[in-house]
Each structure stands twice: as structure tokens, then as C-alpha cells.
């Protein structure tokens, strides 16, 4: 076979196409012009122009999370790369596979403080799974293929490829993906022999078991969620999900306890606290989940299934670690449970469910919609009611704050990959670009960004991107004119001194929408809500629905910082009666 030679920029495009990529989010600049020139010359890759590089990474995250594919980003050197850093960190924290190409000044200028030069590999080293600086056009194809392998295998994550401009112009040889093998990075996916049997024995002996599942199940692919659902049904154990794991197990299933953690369900947190066996699948005992560590699930044995060995025993020591792909391990657990004809201790399990029922009966999400102010909970319940009527597939993204937690509590996810939220990093401004990326991946679906007015302002320039490509996303702004979660913490911890948390000088969101060619709607009273939601969904193009909600409402239930699962606050009455400890004050 004759070797194919082409310039570095063409090599990148060719390698992307061979990796099955058809969508790139980016923003041009001097140091990536050769790559943009190659994009111009072909028709297989579609490039979407964002309005700020941070938006490109979040859009690629939305694309990746809703499809399970690798999201691809292209930005220029210097400020292009530094603007991408927040998105890269976000993708690292939430284990989202991203490839981000950054332009770089020509190799002979590197280190000279050239125009738009930044030490991109240096800056992005701690916020990527891996990064590369390509110095020779002959390395381009191999490095791109390697980067895809690194981004999507093991625990997925973002990979930066820094490409100096002379490498984009220089000629090199193309190699196809099949010829590239990684020398050192080949993570284990199959569990160690015997571990699954040990886990099965622990599960069969448990009297108060609970599954605690996270984003790892979703990253393992939709089949892993199906296997999980079968395993939960076979065992009859309750199943709680993390913020990242919503959709991994159907919300409507009677065995689902809903989300756990700081703003999780009372029954989920109490079940964790009193359980005698926690089966953790693809979750990482994060501080939002555990609360006070020394009081976390004191009586439970813990099985931890994770593809990343560094997640094991990081926060919480576990009794049985199983390193492997969530889908593979769940499959072996299910097969083992069935073939060994294992049964849970039925009378103990029945008692356990009886106990859980009493916690459920506390109805921790109850609220009162009265008067003429829209309660945020009511707004989301009405939104869910309208979404239930949809024949189309529905995808939800969020920004970060109170609205995000309310969305996690009140919206229902039956399938994986339908819920895109910034969990680990908590990036305000994530939801709008993520919704754009999600909608581009699923043109016929209904994509709603549940937003807050403060978060929305952080990346609202991407309204222009949505308008350009006729991306018909719906932005459901829960507008309380406050950085609500900041205000809630100031109320709880700082004597109600609301320093800088009021969002003054807000735009008129209807006029703002119209200025970008969007449709703007507003609901001010509970009676207007259903019409606005119906109209929002029925409108063909992108829409902002400005939902004016109760300005004082706080997000409950809540485990205050420094408290244990059993010390949940269910509402404002509890808040007054239980002041937060000094140790808790310093936590975030």
C-alpha cells in the first residue's frame, strides 16, 4: 500500500473522520487557521461555531453525555485554550470523553512569549486525563487515535492535543486507527476472579441492603443500565442514584429511592445510614453524598465497583473493592445471582422495605403551592407533567444552583443519557451550551435547559450559536432574582447577610430572547404556568421561558455541611431548630 501523505491539518481531519466524528464545536483563531481551511474543503465533518470557547467544551460535553460518543472541540492558542480550561476541568470531574484540539504558536516560537502563546500543555495538565503537544506532522494521526483511546477507555475524560501551526502546515504520513496500540494505557475492565462470588455471598446474606449507583453506570453504556435494572429486580433491593447517576435506574420503578446526598431524598439517605450492605456501582463516595465521613453508613459493609482503582478507599474504606467496567461486573453479578439461584433474606428484606416505607411517608418533597407566587417545585412538577405527554425523546440539562437540585428532585429520568448536569465541578453556565450540543446530537428530541437567571447570564452569548444553527432548545429559567444557593447558604451560615448574591440589573428576558431571534415567554402567576410551558414546547425555534418563582424559597431536604445522613433538614422549621456546627461552617 502506498503511504498517504498530507499536511498536519488534513491529517487531523482525516483521523477524526476515521474515528467516526461528524460534529466539532469550536472557534477559529490565528493558530488554527490551517485546520479551519481543511474543514472548509470537506463535507463529512460539520463544525458548529460557538461564541466563546468555554461554550464549545460544554456543548461537546452535552453531545458526549447524551450520545456516549466522544465530544470534539477545536479552539485556537492562548486565550482560546485558556477559555476552554473550565470546560475541560468540568469534563474531568464528571468523567466525560472529550478531545480538545488547541492551536499553538509555531514550534520555533514556543517559549518566546509569542502573540497568543500560552503553555497549554502546562496549564491543562491537571485538568485533563492526558495531553499531547505534537512536534512532528508524522505523529499527528497516531496521537489523535491514541487520544481517542485514552478519552473513551477506562474512566473517560478530556484529552487536549496542542498543535503548533507549523505542524499543521507540515507534511506527514497518515496511519489508520487500527494500526495504533497504546504502549502503557490499557485499563482493566474484567473483574478479578472470585470477587464477584464474594459480592454475591455478601448480597445474599444482607438484611438491609441498598444499591448506590452513579455516573459510572451511565458511562458503561445503556446496556449497563438495563443489566442494573434486572439485577435490582432480581434481588429486590432498593436502589438510590447519585446526581450523576439519575436515569441509570428508572425513576418510576418502585424499587428506586431517588437521589441521595446533600439535597437527596430522606428515604435514600436514611436507607444508606441504616443499611448493613451498600453495593456501590460507578459512584465515588463524594462529599456531597457522604456528609460527615465519620458518621457515614456506620453499620454497612461496602462493596465498591469502579473502573478507576483510585476511586477505591479514597474517601470511605470499603470491604470489597471490585475493579472493572460497571456493565461487565453487573452482568457477572446478574448471571451469578440467577445461576446460583440466590435469594435475599425475604423476611428481613420485607422488614427493611417496611422501614423504608415509613421514611417515604415523610414525603420529603412536599411543598405548598398557595397564593399567587409560583413555587419552583410546582413549576418543575408542571414541566414534568407536560414532558410526560411528549412522544419525542426528552433531554434535560441544567445550570448550577437551587434550580439544579430542584430539577434533580422533581424531574423524573427513566433512561440513561437524558440528564446532563455539571456535578463535580458545579459550573454555572454549563446548561445552555450543553443543551445546544445535546440538541445537535438529537435534532428531533425535546431539549430543555432548566436554568437559573444568574447561571444563564454566564454563557448567554451562546444564544447566538443556537440561533445560527436553528437549534430549538428551550431554556426554562427559574428566575428568583437571586443566586439562590448562595443566598440559602448565607441564610444558613452567615446570619442572613446577603453579600452580593442579589442578581441586580437583570435583562428583560423576553426582549433578550427576541433580540437573538428567539421566542421569549413569561409566567408570573401559577395560573399562567401551564400555558407558558405548553407554548414553550410547541414553539418550533429556541425559547426562553422566564418563570418568575418565589424569591425566598430554599432547597430542601438538606444535609447541612458537617452533618450526617440522619441529620437531614426537611424544611425551614428544622433549619431554625438545628444550628450548623463550627466544623460544618468551614466546609463547602
Amino acid at each position, binding site marked *: 500500500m502506498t503511504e498517504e501523505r498530507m499536511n498536519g491539518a488534513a491529517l487531523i481531519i482525516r483521523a477524526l473522520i476515521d474515528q467516526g466524528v461528524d460534529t466539532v464545536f469550536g472557534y477559529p483563531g490565528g493558530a488554527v487557521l490551517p485546520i479551519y481551511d481543511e474543514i472548509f474543503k470537506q463535507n463529512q465533518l460539520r463544525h458548529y461555531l460557538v461564541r466563546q470557547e468555554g461554550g464549545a467544551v460544554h456543548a461537546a460535553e452535552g453531545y458526549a453525555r447524551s450520545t456516549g460518543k466522544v465530544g470534539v472541540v477545536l479552539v485556537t492558542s492562548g486565550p482560546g485554550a485558556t477559555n476552554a480550561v473550565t470546560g475541560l476541568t468540568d469534563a474531568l470531574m464528571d468523567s466525560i470523553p472529550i478531545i480538545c484540539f488547541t492551536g499553538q504558536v509555531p514550534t520555533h516560537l514556543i517559549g518566546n512569549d509569542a502573540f497568543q502563546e500560552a503553555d497549554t500543555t502546562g496549564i491543562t495538565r491537571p485538568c485533563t486525563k492526558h495531553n499531547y503537544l505534537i512536534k512532528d506532522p508524522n505523529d499527528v494521526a497516531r496521537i489523535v487515535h491514541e487520544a481517542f483511546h485514552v478519552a473513551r477507555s477506562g474512566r473517560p475524560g478530556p484529552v487536549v492535543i496542542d498543535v503548533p501551526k507549523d505542524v499543521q502546515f507540515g507534511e506527514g504520513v497518515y496511519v489508520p486507527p487500527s494500526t495504533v496500540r497504546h*504502549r*502503557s494505557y490499557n485499563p482493566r475492565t474484567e473483574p478479578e476472579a472470585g470477587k464477584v462470588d464474594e459480592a454475591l455471598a455478601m448480597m445474599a446474606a444482607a438484611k438491609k441492603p441498598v444499591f448506590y449507583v452513579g455516573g459510572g453506570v451511565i458511562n458503561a453504556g445503556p446496556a449497563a443500565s438495563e443489566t442494573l435494572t434486572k439485577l435490582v429486580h432480581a434481588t429486590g433491593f432498593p436502589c438510590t442514584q447519585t446526581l450523576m447517576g439519575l436515569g441509570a435506574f428508572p425513576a418510576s420503578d418502585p424499587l428506586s429511592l431517588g437521589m441521595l446526598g446533600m439535597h437527596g431524598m430522606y428515604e435514600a439517605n436514611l436507607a444508606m445510614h441504616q443499611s448493613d450492605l451498600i453495593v456501590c456501582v460507578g459512584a465515588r463516595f463524594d462529599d456531597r453524598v457522604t456528609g460527615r465521613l465519620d458518621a457515614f453508613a456506620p453499620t454497612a459493609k461496602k462493596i465498591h465497583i469502579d473502573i*478507576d*482503582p*483510585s476511586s477505591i478507599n479514597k474517601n470511605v474504606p470499603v470491604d470489597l473493592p471490585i475493579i472493572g467496567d460497571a456493565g461487565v461486573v453487573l452482568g457477572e453479578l446478574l448471571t451469578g445471582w440467577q445461576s446460583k439461584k440466590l435469594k435475599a433474606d425475604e423476611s428481613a428484606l420485607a422488614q427493611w422495605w417496611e422501614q423504608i416505607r415509613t421514611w417515604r411517608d415523610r414525603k420529603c418533597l412536599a411543598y405548598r403551592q398557595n397564593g399567587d407566587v409560583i413555587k419552583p417545585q410546582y413549576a418543575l412538577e408542571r414541566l414534568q407533567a407536560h414532558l410526560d405527554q411528549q412522544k419525542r425523546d426528552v433531554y434535560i440539562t441544567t445550570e448550577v444552583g437551587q434550580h439544579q437540585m430542584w430539577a434533580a428532585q422533581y424531574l423524573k429520568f427513566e433512561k440513561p443519557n437524558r440528564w446532563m448536569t455539571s456535578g463535580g465541578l458545579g459550573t454555572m453556565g454549563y446548561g445552555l451550551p450543553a443543551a445546544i450540543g445535546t440538541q445537535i446530537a438529537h435534532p428531533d428530541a425535546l431539549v430543555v435547559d432548566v436554568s437559573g437567571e444568574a447561571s444563564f447570564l454566564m454563557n448567554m452569548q451562546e444564544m447566538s450559536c443556537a440561533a445560527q444553527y436553528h437549534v430549538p432548545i428551550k431554556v426554562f429559567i427559574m428566575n428568583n432574582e437571586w443566586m439562590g444557593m448562595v443566598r440559602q447558604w448565607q441564610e444558613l451560615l452567615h446570619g442572613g447577610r446577603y453579600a452580593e448574591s442579589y442578581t441586580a440589573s437583570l435583562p428583560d428576558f423576553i426582549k433578550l430572547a427576541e433580540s437573538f431571534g428567539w421566542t421569549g415567554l413569561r409566567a408570573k402567576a401559577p395560573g399562567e404556568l401551564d400555558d407558558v410551558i405548553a407554548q414553550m414546547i410547541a414553539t418550533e425555534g429556541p425559547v426562553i421561558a422566564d418563570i418568575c418563582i418565589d424569591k425566598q424559597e430554599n432547597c430542601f431536604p438538606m444535609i447541612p455541611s458537617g452533618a450526617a445522613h440522619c441529620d437531614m433538614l426537611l424544611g425551614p422549621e428544622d433549619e431554625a431548630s438545628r444550628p450548623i456546627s463550627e466544623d460544618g461552617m468551614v466546609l463547602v
Partner: protein
Amino acid sequence: MQDQTIEQHTISVLVDNEPGVLARVIGLFSGRGYNIESLTVAEVNPAEHLSRITIVTSGTPMIIEQIKAQLGRLVPIHAVSDLTEEGPFVARELALVKVVGKGEPRVESLRIADIFRAHPVDSTNESFVFEITGSSEKVDAFINLMRPLGLADVARTGSVAIARGNPAL
């Protein structure tokens, strides 16, 4: 509660000899707040471009486990081996020790160097540079003895280590 005793571990890491690999390792330690007591690195397999990094670190057993798992996660790392845990190993450090003085102290420094099998590798009428190899404790002891005899400067490599016996990393 978990074991809170601080242990010292010598960890040997085989890495691709490529730009930035040391920065990845050091960045991991500083970013996650782990200790580095010493760190050495050099290429050990030029044919395959592999380097060995020897790190002496300390922490609770849970932290040591994290350090190894986090190192194992770095893409250009081929193998991570906890020599302290895996059995007997040999650790050596080299130091160059400059001692400045005349008369009796100068003679005394030479006598002690002889006991420690340290060799003078540079000499003027008023100074010696001794080369000493051994465990870090031996190097410490030698340096302490040189202190009253005119110790002027020290350069140390940090510990390099390898497992005893047959198996390779």
C-alpha cells in the same frame, strides 16, 4: 477509625521518557497534597525510552494506597511498584560533601571519610569534596559528623531503589 500512622514508602515507577512526564508526577503530588521526601529520575531503557522514577513518600496507609492508584492512572506510566510493601529492596543515595578547613579538623574529616568509605573526589589545600554512597541514614550520619569539621556544602541525589532477588518491575 482508619489507621492514622504515618509510614514512609519507597515507590518505583516505570514511565515513558517523554516531555512532561516528570511534571505530571510532581503535579499529582503537589495538586493532591502528598509528600515527596525525595525523587530521582533517569532513563533506564534507552531502546524503549523508559525512565525509572524513585519516589520516597510518607502518609497514612490510605494515602499511600491513593498515591499508588493515582500514579497508576497517569497515561504514560507503565508500572507502579511499592518496594516497601513488596518485600526486601536495596536503596542507595549518593552525596557530594564539601568540607573546608585546615590542620587537625581537615585530617579528622579524612579519617572519618575512610570509616564511611567516602572518597575524596576533589581536593585543594583547604578543602575536600567527598563522594559517599549508602543508605540515606548513613549519608545523614556522615554529613552530621562533617558539620563541626567545616562542612560547607552538600549535594544529594535522593534515594534510588530496586527490589532484591529475581523479579523485574
